[in-house]
């Protein structure tokens, strides 16, 4: 197995696992962490794409894309954290489900 398959496949696995948790758990912080893990998987795949050819130097364009992506992910995570914090301080709940109210989210 080449390095690209190892890291690219790992990136895909991270992405899919994060996606599953994003759409199934109801606790908002857990959703946010799952979204960050998805982003990490995408970055790993991009970096693996940059290093596909062992003879040449790494491809700088995916590197620049990952740098941009990391910065955007940080910004979005910070804004989402502020929103979740505001929701918690206004309503006391950490989910968006009306049926559960303040019940703890699914495991």
């Amino acid at each position, binding site marked *: 197995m080449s390095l690209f398959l190892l890291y690219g496949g790992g990136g895909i696995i991270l992405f*899919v696992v994060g996606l599953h948790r994003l759409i199934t758990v109801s606790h908002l912080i857990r959703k946010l962490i799952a979204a960050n893990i998805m982003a990490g998987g995408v970055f790993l795949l991009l970096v693996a794409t940059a290093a*596909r050819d062992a003879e040449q130097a790494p491809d700088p364009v995916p590197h620049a894309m990952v740098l941009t992506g990391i910065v955007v992910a940080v910004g979005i995570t910070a804004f989402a954290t*502020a929103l979740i914090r505001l929701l918690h301080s206004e309503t006391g709940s950490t989910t968006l489900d009306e049926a559960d109210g303040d019940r703890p989210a699914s495991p």
Partner: protein
Amino acid sequence: MSETARWRRVWGVVAGVACLVLGMALLREVVDLSDHRAGLTSTVAAAMEDSGVSHPPTAVLLNFRSYDTWLEVVVLLGAVLGVLSLADRRDFSLAAPRQDAPVLRRLVDLVLPLVLLGGVFLLAQGTGAPGGAFQAGAVVAAGLLLAHLGGSLRLGRIRGVMVVLVAGVAAFLTAGLATLTAGRPLLDFPTPGSHAVIVGIEIAIAVSTALTLTLLVLASAPADGPDEDLP
């Protein structure tokens, strides 16, 4: 088990199957992709002399694809504006620093100059080696947050916050308008001056990113100290 829990269990299984199928399809594409050797390494290497810097990712970020970087800085600005608009305080002051951690404070006072120097160093070597504006901004922001945690950062109302926060976007705007009025395509820097323009934009981005990241963390802290209901 209750109705809601049952539906949640069903949805979990359905989502699991769907994600598994998606994962298989993506993995197959990754296996296909490993046979392709084409990349943009040689294309970028051929254009490096016109870029004004010697490090390929920096050239890609700030010259060849500088429009993407411009919009990235705009996204950061949008995030900090969103966080500031949700903040408890309306005067941009930072939360009160801790007063009861003398060892931490002494340690931070020793380490902080090194951290700030490290940030400036990353910015300075960004044109020739891994480093650059965002990395420097992140390191300086980490230093400022350390100082806040240690209790030695005592900023009341910060004057000129907005000016510093928009500095990165404004630098790109200036460079873009300059290239447009010179008759060139947007952000197409002329080869002789591209190094100076890139360094100038990097400095602006580093300063604004440092303050942006600091405010992203600190502006959303509650006005009256840590939450009482945290365990």
